[in-house]
């Protein structure tokens, strides 16, 4: 049997990103336009996941800090940001967007150092989208009446926003930009393991002259988020994260008059038909599951492949994962970086263990892994059925589950056989099939012959336990307005 050799000929030399950045030793809270120490004086350690070593201390905000932040946001809403002419608010957002572009290299490097994602993704995907979101919503600030003809949109007040660790800056942008464009003020809580870049974003807010209190950032762990969700001065909660935490937030908010949007987990199906553009489908599946180490809520984590092409597709995947370069997130040639935290690595390992135990076959890249830090080889399971845990639970790592189907009807039934419904992919050369499949898939975002494409003008959000409410686009304005 002839096979390809992916060896050492024309090996790439290390190509580390060398632009100097200033990671601080200590990060404070950002309240009322100032960097202030936490009232209780407590800090926690932030770790570089590629080395496992501590690299910064982060302020651990408690309920009193949250209270100060909410009060500051309320003052700013009532005195400054709420009454401000919408076109003026837009100017601030444009200014912020431009500053993000100017500092994008530094922010990308910090994002990779703190979160473990490869620099080529933080540089080419995250940061351009961060700036694009601010630009996009800046444009809406003075046109809200045109967005909702015949209605009178008004801001809601103070928004409490809790974001995850997989796209720290991008999720901050998704939350902050529409909230401010609609005239609200914000208290943001970044994820515990990825707080650094949010604080650099706060510096940009200062530099842009954003009035004090319009955006407040309180770092901390789960308790900090809990305090924010429970604070009576909050008018709206926007949360992106796990379905488990999302359900707890929904319960807690249910007894209040707070508005709520949730963007939660996913177990997206990527449907590949036998008439698909095969080579591009392989790339799409690879991008769908290994992008950002699989730490993507809309990751294409279930590959549903037509039985007739199963074996060929699997051998193509096996070959392709051998050419993925795993390692130093700051190397410009790295395709797959570090797993975000030790805890997440543990969760991935546990679920992969269950897949093996339940009889699925694990295929993994033969690549070497660095000795220190948190790493997982790009992998996929074959022989998976809808009853396997690896087909039902979100792994949130570089691990794909391969299932099969025989007919379009079975493909739909299997794709929808999940409690999630965030995204899906369809691969076929036949346009009519794309439309009939897309009609029947229960998912908020559906990609055809591509995957993981994002744009600020396009709404994003889930069906079923993947959450409710939309972010992005015109639809992303509505959750931050009352009529």
């Amino acid at each position: 049997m002839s096979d390809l050799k992916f060896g050492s000929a024309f090996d790439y030399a290390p190509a580390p990103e060398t632009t100097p950045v200033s990671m601080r030793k200590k990060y404070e809270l950002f309240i009322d336009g100032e960097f202030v120490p936490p009232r209780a004086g407590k800090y926690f350690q932030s770790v570089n996941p590629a080395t496992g070593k501590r690299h910064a201390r982060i302020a651990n905000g408690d309920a009193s800090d949250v209270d100060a932040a909410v009060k500051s946001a309320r003052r700013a809403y009532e005195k400054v940001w709420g009454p401000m002419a919408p076109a003026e608010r837009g100017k601030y957002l444009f200014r912020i967007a431009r500053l993000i572009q100017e500092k994008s290299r530094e922010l990308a490097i910090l994002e990779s150092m703190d979160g473990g994602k490869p620099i080529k993704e933080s540089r080419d995907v995250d940061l351009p989208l961060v700036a694009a979101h601010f630009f996009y919503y800046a444009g809406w600030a003075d046109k809200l009446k045109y967005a909702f003809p015949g209605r009178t949109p008004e801001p809601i007040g103070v928004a409490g926003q809790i974001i995850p660790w997989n796209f720290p800056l991008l999720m901050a942008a998704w939350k902050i930009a529409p909230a401010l464009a609609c005239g609200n003020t914000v208290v943001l809580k970044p994820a515990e393991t990825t707080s650094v870049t949010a604080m650099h974003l706060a510096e940009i807010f200062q530099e842009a002259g954003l009035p004090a209190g319009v955006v407040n950032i309180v770092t901390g762990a789960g308790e900090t988020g809990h305090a924010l969700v429970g604070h009576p001065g909050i008018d709206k909660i926007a949360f992106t994260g796990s379905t488990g935490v999302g359900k707890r937030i929904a319960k807690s908010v249910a007894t209040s008059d707070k508005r709520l949007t949730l963007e939660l987990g996913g177990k997206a199906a990527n449907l590949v038909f036998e008439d698909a553009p095969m080579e591009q489908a392989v790339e799409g599946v690879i991008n769908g599951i290994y992008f950002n180490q699989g730490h993507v809520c809309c990751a294409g984590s279930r590959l549903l492949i037509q039985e007739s092409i199963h074996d060929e597709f699997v051998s193509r995947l096996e070959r392709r994962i051998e050419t993925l370069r795993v390692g130093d997130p700051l190397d410009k040639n790295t395709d797959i970086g570090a797993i975000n935290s030790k805890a997440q690595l543990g969760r991935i390992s546990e679920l992969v263990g269950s897949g093996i135990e339940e009889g699925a076959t694990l295929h993994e890249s033969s690549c070497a892994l660095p000795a220190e830090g948190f790493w997982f080889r790009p992998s996929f399971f074959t022989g998976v059925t809808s009853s396997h845990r690896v087909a039902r639970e979100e792994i949130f790592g570089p691990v794909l589950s391969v299932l099969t189907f025989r007919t379009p009807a079975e493909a739909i039934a299997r794709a929808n056989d999940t409690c999630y419904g965030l995204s899906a992919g369809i691969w076929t050369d036949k346009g009519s099939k794309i439309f009939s499949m897309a009609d029947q898939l229960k998912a908020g975002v559906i990609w055809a012959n591509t995957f993981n494409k994002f744009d600020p003008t396009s709404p994003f959000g889930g069906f079923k336990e993947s959450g409710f409410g939309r972010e992005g686009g015109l639809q992303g304005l509505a959750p931050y307005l009352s009529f």
Partner: protein
Amino acid sequence: MSFTLQFPVPALDQVGVDERAAKFTSRSIKNEAKRVGLKMAVSMMDLTTLEGADSNGKVSYLCRKARQPMAERYDCPPCAAICVYPNQVAHAVTELEGSGIPVASVATGFPSGQYPLDIRLEDVKDAVNSGAAEIDMVISRGAFLEGDYARVSDEIAAVKQACGDAHLKVIFETGELQTYDNVRFVSQLAIEAGADFIKTSTGKVSPAATLPVTLILVETVRDHFLATGKKVGVKPAGGIRTAKEALQYLVMVKETIGDDWLTPDLFRFGASSLLGDVELQLAKLVDGNYQSADYFSKG
């Protein structure tokens, strides 16, 4: 005009092909990797002159350049071959005596191929008799676009026979075939008809070689190898002018088809002006700074 390939060709999505090709351009090739890649590019280069004004004198210049592209201290390998019109083959063979560098000749009424088949075959035989070790033929694009695939296939087989021991490179002129589906189909057709190499372009039509089109050629060769074990070469030609672009092609080969194709036996660049920039870049790696282009002979 019914015609079936032995191995059917898969569907292609143009957006996806372009996107994949663009990813190869974001690799960062530095230091030792750059040195290795640049020398490899020179060793894969079919140094080419294909002009009406070509004379023995012009070809002599080119042959000397191919033997030793750079001063000895740069440790630069010779080029893979010299590529000329049939009339210059005998002279090039004499000029390259003892160097081990083969002479490639375009033939079959290059670049249009719009001549009767017997004349095109005579063209091939004449070039081979003059000493050409490699023949770069053009397909009948008109016949292909008419849907007369059998004729295109039969002609390639006939040229292959006329080549004897000479290696056959089949030029598609992808700039005229235009769609990626056509490129994939003709690649498979040429391989099945007996091509030793498949080649994008004559260099006389724009666009000539592009990364996405060459990727389709490489993928076809890879899939055919996986199905049959047979190794066919790939030659992008025309339009590749900078060292950076050459390295992007090598990245694509390395990550798509692997180490076995990173050799002049299976991958070539058809280029007339690429060598100059590669020389500048190689010299920079050795000397630590860029030199004036005036220090390097133009060939």
